[in-house]
């Protein structure tokens, strides 16, 4: 793993917890965005981001520096979000807001509601894994190496999933255009 991060963590583990703030500085923005894209709600994203960092702080002694830190913290963020949606939705396998069917009551502001509805048209059709990779690649500007760390899938596999998703969307868009064409004729 990243030597600097490793040193910070080892320091934290040997009692020098002050250095946690360095980890915080590195990850706060990344984790917040990661969660925001899954919840589309400022207050919720802040709450869940807080929870993630408290979990990380509480368990930093349990982290083994043999492994990389970033997949660990993203995994915690992911689980926190999943747990959150479980609370509100009875539906199984909800991992982010984009997978919600018609429960748009969750989205409060009109502006956010519009984005939600628009994006949902495209993204709800994907599996959560596909959606996750699309969001990380296109919105979070992450490289496949980084995506691979977060998802635990190898980079090659992530590339395949991404390409297939785009390809799938293309055929769906084409189909929709075709139907429109037929109807108009």
């Amino acid at each position, binding site marked *: 793993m990243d030597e600097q991060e490793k040193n910070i963590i080892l320091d934290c583990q040997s*009692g020098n917890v002050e250095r946690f703030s360095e980890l915080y500085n590195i990850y706060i923005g990344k984790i*917040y965005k990661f969660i925001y894209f899954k919840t589309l709600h400022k207050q919720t994203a802040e709450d869940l981001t807080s929870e993630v960092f408290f979990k990380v702080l509480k368990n930093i002694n349990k982290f*083994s520096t043999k492994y990389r830190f970033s997949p660990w913290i993203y995994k915690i963020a992911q689980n926190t979000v999943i747990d959150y949606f479980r609370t509100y939705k009875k539906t199984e396998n909800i991992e982010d807001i984009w997978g919600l069917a018609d429960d748009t009551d969750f989205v409060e502001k009109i502006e956010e509601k519009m984005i939600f509805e628009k994006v949902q048209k495209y993204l709800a059709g994907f599996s959560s894994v596909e959606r996750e990779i699309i969001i990380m690649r296109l919105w979070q500007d992450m490289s496949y190496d980084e995506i691979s760390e977060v998802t635990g899938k190898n980079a090659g596999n992530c*590339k*395949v999933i991404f390409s297939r998703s785009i390809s799938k969307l293309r055929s769906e868009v084409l189909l929709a255009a075709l139907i429109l064409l037929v109807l108009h004729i």
Partner: protein
Amino acid sequence: MQNIENILEEIYKIEPALKNREGELIKIINSLIDLKPEVKIDENFILSLKSKLQSKYGVSEPPKTWFTFLDLRLVGGLAVAALLIIIAAPFIKTTPSDTGQPSETSIITNRDDGSVVVKNDEGIVTKQSEAGKTIAGFVKFKSADEYKKYLAYSDQGYYGFGGGIGGRIDTMGLNEAMPSPALSQPTGIKQSDATAPSRVSETNVQVAGIDEPDILKTDGKEIYFSPMYQYYYAQPMPMGVSVPETFINPDIIEKNILPPYTYNKPKTNVIKAFPADKLSKDGVIDKTGNLLLSGNILIIFEQQNIYGYDVSDPKNPTQKWNVGINSRNSFVESRLYDGVIYLVTRTNTNRYDPCPIVLFKTGGQEISVRCENIYHPIGSTPVNANYHISTINPATGKLAEGISFVGSYDSTVYMSKNGIYIAYSRQGDFLKLIRDLFSENSDIIPKEIVGKLEKLMTYDISDSSKMSEFQIIYRDYLNSLGSDESLRIENELSNRAGDYFKKHKRELTKTDIIKIAVNSLKVDAMGTVPGNLLNQFSLDEYQTNLRVAVTIGGNGFMGFGNQSEQENDIYVLNTNLSRIGSIEGLGLGERIYSARFIEDKGYLVTFKQIDPFFVLDLSNPARPQVKGELKIPGYSAYLHPINKDKILGVGKEGSRVKVSLFDVSDAANPKEASKFVLEEYWSDILNTHHAFLLDPRHKVFFMPGGNGGYVFSYDSDKLSIKKAVSGISAKRAVFIDDYMYIAGDNKIIVLDENSWERIGQLDL
């Protein structure tokens, strides 16, 4: 933004045919990028969370004056957001007449302090004997509306800032004699049977006789091993262990052959382990998770399902029953005691759709709990979770509802043979503390401000609203002064507040402890101690008392309290969970890293830079005292009694794993008889005591490490490595007769404990 060319190139590598559709692809990718919601992270949020984190473990940032923290001009609405989480719930107005009226089955106890405890089917209530005023209690909600109102008041959002990982259970009570190593007669095998082993180890648990779920169980003939930990529900983090997945070779992808993405679901292995030379794989169950073994029934806790398998024919394990845990419900802990599975699960509170809460699905039926069957503490407790205790008959899978109650997400569960204890921390009553602070400083804060606060405290509004109101009152007051005077008062108050909160640090955070009787699954008692618990080992029942080890301070309260203010207390509570004795102020500036109570002794490790190891004399519950103290480098995160005079500590020194053998034969002068620092950065024992195995016959213990497994000898009070086993990602070990089986992710290695030679290996 990245170059769209790159993205296209990547896609063409996978699906070259799409090159002909470049125009469409560009459109699609651009529209996906355009869809990206605008995301801005609030700078105030970044700063406020940072400061909360720093105060959590007392990280010392230059101490900000705490009134700055409350200052509306600086933090605006954000202070309120933070407060929502920190402040205790307001009082639900209850009168003695609507809670816990004595019924015919009530048990009424008069306490020494003049109060009366009434306990019946409706709950438990403590009243002042004269006025009959309710002081405390734990009663059922009257209606769904009352439940909703309670949640609205305890407006702290979905989780607590306690850092809720939740559900860590420590079971090290050892209130059964000395912790003779987990050792039992092999289940279902006659001792006289020459084909049966003479001894078998059990999972290292807290309380002898109460089994805890773990990834490996054995009955002396078979080993049941489920290598993949269910980290998500028990502990929502991967701990560096990822789900084993079969990946496709990237080279193949590059060549555009597209094998399907596959996922190898981990399985539970049934391994013939006895006799040792017949080591072989008997069967496989396609479920995985923590295990319990009750007679011939293997219980598997797999995420949202609990399965019971009949393993009387190990080659053909057959599923006998299944209990589905509803998606809103999650597994916290479980115990097997006297042929009954006790199950603790948790649901997050849901203000919009509170009840009924569907907990389980079994036999085609949903099992749910109504609001009216959920207990709650009377008075101020912030809640964000419901706890449910149920039982399962391992033979039939029949589930029986027990009890449900509200609490906070950050919980500790401990079970003795008499009670299941659930403890959760909450913040103290901040407004009351401020009111008292203001009253004490009447030279700078006028009486009418205190009066306004007192009035505010009686309002029937949520705590977050009260905090907003408080800030307005305080700001108005400062604004009414000239700016010089305002500056002086702010500084004066901030300075005095430091001392004030130091003095009242035991009021800042509280831990509520609920005791549920094992035989009836009814509320037996509730009590409160200051501070926070570390884990299940922080609680221990001995005779009729409960001993509790807590850390005070250091976890911050509105940004106060830093590490130098941490200290640690021991409380002895009686059967009503009322305090009868205490030791306060241990390890100033340090926090508890491990605790272990053994009969009338207690051992405590606190840590900041060096590791003070305390020996506590608890023989007189009313007057517990520190008997001895030892300071050594590093810390111990797990304490295991080897015998009456020796305690083993597993922890870290610097970044490396350390084992210490403490000689406590002279309680006043504990000594480190031996120490071993391993070339390892991690051992699973730091995560769970289940990973530890003691074999007293051979005077050895087993420790998994990152590079392999280690068998340590403690013979003659000297720690040395008896055998290091490489080439295995060791997780657990058991012994059957004189053979030690070391189980790793993908193999089991057998050692002869007499020669310490490898005599067998099985690849899984």
